[in-house]
């Protein structure tokens, strides 16, 4: 059954893999100093190597020229291998639930490396500049662009403490103790001087973002711990860079003076702040550029990627912290860019980032495995074991000590369980490996030993800690990520609280961090947004943006989960607008009322065709792409709808009932909902009773649902009512309930089809909209590149 299937799949997969490696391996072989993917030897192409022709050769019909494509071919082969690996793991669900992906990838790397070695070639090593220039940036950009800013800034103090002080402590503790051990050990190790040890300590003490992301992604712990460990892994880059350069510079000299130490501190500030400034500048440039891209939507994602990559490279030019530059760039540009770019661009950016970071991540771990097989090793039991022990001890002591101090300043204190997870989550990874690899053998004769030790530590942390952290999290009952439904009420009250606390701080006369946050927000709104966001979007307050997004999401979920053709039999009817509206006295009706029976029928139909959908969990997980309100097909339909002309919207008022508009007088009053070829679904109308909808309206002040029936153009379709008033009023949608809640984001800037909607202006009061079925291919294509967030 399932087991057999997965075994079969596994066998086929291994077959494919074997073939790939088989074709790849004869081509591979490398010498140490070269680019890992450009391998030196290749089979000599005999056919093309013709000797001087004595006689006329027959025209070669089929020839073989491998050198020409070697480099891209091999790169593609490796990437393909990595991707197939990823595929493979997900075919084996049982295995992937026990062992984290990173471990499996390293094992695969070991196997591949072993295979290559068996064949007789030298396996490629993870070349440091490939790593730093090509493999690392996508991962960091992905992390930075999607960084949860709110949690990050709330815990910034703690994160900085761990990143800076914690890393320094680790570096000196490990380095110092190792030096002591080396001295004590005697013959083989006594040549290792203090500076080398300190350098080694500083390299190995940095928590690695790649490894942390890879492992923590799968265990879904609560956001606080996630952001603490992850934030620490990102911010400690500055410390690592400074310490690395400091010790490397002076290792040749041999001594460090106090001036050097002071310069080192200054350097640290320059490196970190400089990196952030560089990133912020590029971020603002990117945001500014995106303001003008309304006519060239296709290349919008390119700007995002290019500016970020340039930020990283520019920072690296000056030996500033490239990682911090990248994070700053992504975080700064995101709110503005997202307000400017189209839906498709947003999706593109998201998918590309996730894809690249996923591939990078896979490649890194595979290469770690291969490099382990390849790399020159020097195994020294004492050194390696000592390193391992000191690293673990240093981490634990550091975390405990720092938490003790930090808790004095935190409101939400860190419990010992939290501390354990933070300590346990301090994984080392490929960055450390690459940094050691960069060391010059002349200055550091013991580099190979360092390499071996680092690899051991990395393996230990990734395998042992990575594998056991999940059961430990369960065992200790650490709080997991909350599946919270982000509700409009919470959003309203979050905003309310922000203003309230700012107000109280002002009354107290205390300029606390709410005050400054508020000032920053106001500055942002007043000046920055105007510069960087195009058009009307710049004035949209956050609450409204949230509201629109939420409605879109609901509508999409409704579409996805409901099925037009299959009406669920028992539907929990939920609350609708009529339930909360204060009762109004019956008003005079100009037109004949619908009979009671009719009304009941309508209501029943409406109810039975709607389902309550739950908002999906929104979690910060870089590997899952949640159904996005802004996916392609959806938005196109909405836009088509909007363009639908006419629609007489008459709102009728029935005393507290949902109202339905009269159908346009010149179109057949057919009311149906249907699912149209996988596109939007909709609401129910009884196919048998078109007359039910024939109500004229009087204006009223209660919200009503408009069911827009067949448009003049496409008689068999039902369209979304598009509410674009003269003033650009936003259509309203209520929570779904007896009425369908859907809101079409209407652009606030004037659009070319607004002329059609002038008839809507008669209705200044709010309306609800109903989203009906797809009009079909008849509808025109429109410029669907709306700004992303309406």
């Amino acid at each position, binding site marked *: 059954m399932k087991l057999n299937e997965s075994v079969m799949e596994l066998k086929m997969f291994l077959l494919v893999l074997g073939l790939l490696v088989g074709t790849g391996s004869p081509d591979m072989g490398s010498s140490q100093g070269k680019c890992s993917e450009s391998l030196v030897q290749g089979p000599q192409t005999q056919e093309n190597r013709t000797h001087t022709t004595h006689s006329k050769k027959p025209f070669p019909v089929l020839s073989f020229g491998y050198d020409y494509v070697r480099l891209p071919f091999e790169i593609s082969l490796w990437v393909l291998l990595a991707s197939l690996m990823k595929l493979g793991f997900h075919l084996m669900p049982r295995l992937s639930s026990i062992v984290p992906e990173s471990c499996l990838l390293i094992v695969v790397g070991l196997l591949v490396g072993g295979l290559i070695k068996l064949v007789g070639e030298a396996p490629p090593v993870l070349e440091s500049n490939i790593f730093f220039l090509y493999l690392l940036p996508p991962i960091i950009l992905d992390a930075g662009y999607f960084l949860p800013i709110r949690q990050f800034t709330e815990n910034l103090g703690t994160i900085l403490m761990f990143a800076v002080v914690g890393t320094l402590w680790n570096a000196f503790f490990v380095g110092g103790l190792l030096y002591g051990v080396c001295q004590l050990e005697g013959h083989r190790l006594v040549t290792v001087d203090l500076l080398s040890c300190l350098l080694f300590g500083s390299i190995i003490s940095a928590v690695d973002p790649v490894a942390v992301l890879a492992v923590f992604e799968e265990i879904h712990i609560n956001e606080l711990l996630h952001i603490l460990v992850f934030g620490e892994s990102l911010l400690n880059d500055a410390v690592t860079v400074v310490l690395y350069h400091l010790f490397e510079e002076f290792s040749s000299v041999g001594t460090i003076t106090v001036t050097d130490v002071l310069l080192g501190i200054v350097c640290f500030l320059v490196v970190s702040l400089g990196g952030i400034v560089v990133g912020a500048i590029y971020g603002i440039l990117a945001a500014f550029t995106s303001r003008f891209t309304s006519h060239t939507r296709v290349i919008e994602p390119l700007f995002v990627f290019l500016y970020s990559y340039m930020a990283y490279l520019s920072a690296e030019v000056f030996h500033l912290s490239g990682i911090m530059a990248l994070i700053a760039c992504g975080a700064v540009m995101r709110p503005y860019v997202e307000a400017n770019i189209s839906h498709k661009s947003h999706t593109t950016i998201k998918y590309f980032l996730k894809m690249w970071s996923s591939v990078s991540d896979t490649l890194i771990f595979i290469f770690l495995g291969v490099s382990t097989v390849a790399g020159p090793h020097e195994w020294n039991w004492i050194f390696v074991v000592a390193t391992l022990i000191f690293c673990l001890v240093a981490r634990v002591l550091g975390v405990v000590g720092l938490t003790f101090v930090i808790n004095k300043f935190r409101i939400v204190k860190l419990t010992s369980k939290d501390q354990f997870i933070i300590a346990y989550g301090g994984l080392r990874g490929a960055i450390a490996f690459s940094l050691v690899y960069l060391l010059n053998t002349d200055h550091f004769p013991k580099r190979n030993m360092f390499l071996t030790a680092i690899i051991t530590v990395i393996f230990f942390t990734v395998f042992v800690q990575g594998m056991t952290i999940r059961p430990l999290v369960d065992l200790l009952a650490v709080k997991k990520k909350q599946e919270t439904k982000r509700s*409009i009420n919470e959003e309203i009250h979050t905003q*309310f609280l922000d203003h309230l606390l700012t107000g109280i701080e002002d009354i107290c006369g*205390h300029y606390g961090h709410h005050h400054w946050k508020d000032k920053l927000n106001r500055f942002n709104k007043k000046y920055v947004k105007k510069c960087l966001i195009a058009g009307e979007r710049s004035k949209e307050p956050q609450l409204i943006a949230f509201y629109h997004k939420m409605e879109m999401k609901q509508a999409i979920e409704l579409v996805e989960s409901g099925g037009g053709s299959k009406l669920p039999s028992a539907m929990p009817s939920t609350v609708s607008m009529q339930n909360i509206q204060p009762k109004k006295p019956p008003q005079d009706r100009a037109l004949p009322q619908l009979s009671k029976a009719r009304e009941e029928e309508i209501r029943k139909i409406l109810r039975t065709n709607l389902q309550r959908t739950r908002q999906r969990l929104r979690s910060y997980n870089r590997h899952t792409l949640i159904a996005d309100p802004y996916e392609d097909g959806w938005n196109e339909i909405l836009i088509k709808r909007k363009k639908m002309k006419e629609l007489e919207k008459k709102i009728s008022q029935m005393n507290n009932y949902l109202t339905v508009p009269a159908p346009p007088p010149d179109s057949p009053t057919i009311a149906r909902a249907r699912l149209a070829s996988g596109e939007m679904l909709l609401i129910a109308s009884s196919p048998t009773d078109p007359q039910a909808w024939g109500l004229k309206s009087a204006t009223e002040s209660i919200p009503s649902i408009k069911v827009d029936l067949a448009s003049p153009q496409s008689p068999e379709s039902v369209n979304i009512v598009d509410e674009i008033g003269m003033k650009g009023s936003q259509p309203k949608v209520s929570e779904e309930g007896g009425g369908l809640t859907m809101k079409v984001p209407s652009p606030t800037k004037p659009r070319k089809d607004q002329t059609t909607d002038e008839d809507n202006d008669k209705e200044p009061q709010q309306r609800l909209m109903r989203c009906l079925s797809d009009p079909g291919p008849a509808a025109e294509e429109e410029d669907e590149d709306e700004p992303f967030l309406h």
Partner: protein
Amino acid sequence: MGLEQNEVSLEQIAILHNRFKQLSQNEETLRRDDLKTIQDLESNPIRYQIIEAFFDRRNFQKDGVGSVEEIGFEEFLTVMSYFRAPAHHITEEQREEIRRAKLRFLFNMHDTDNDGTITLEEYRHVVEELLSRSGALGRETAKGIADAAMLEVASISVGPMAPDEFYEGITFEHFLKILKGIEIETRMHIRFLNMDTAVFCKQHSV
């Protein structure tokens, strides 16, 4: 029960007393106009609600009703103590108490007519005030947002409702329920009041 958890220390009291004196121009009591003179409050969209909260009897007297024209330092301090963070080692019940007290404060801010429920009109007013700085766009969407929010509360608290039923308004219990996700007891605090000192001064409980 009291708000013993919301005690403030002597040092904080002294600082707040100074501020009180500054605001009230050295008089014994504080009036609304005194608070309105604070410059920084001008840009706050909900300043009137905040100021009202200080003069709302419900916030400093048990079973108090209505509002007063002027308050003394004791009342000022009582209102301020709502913004104290809970101590680290407290029991679950105490934490729940604090949550209720703080949410009650928020509830009172919304429930202006003191009928125990937040009606649709009152909620609309809240959202309108929040969006009052956003011009026309704010006004138009405010209603929609408030309606959506109200529907959500009704759906969560009451569940399915027949079309004839009418949801009067958000009661305090419903309010507690919908805001369960926000950790009020830790979010609603001012750091300034968070200094731990050994000496506490119990305040008049609400």
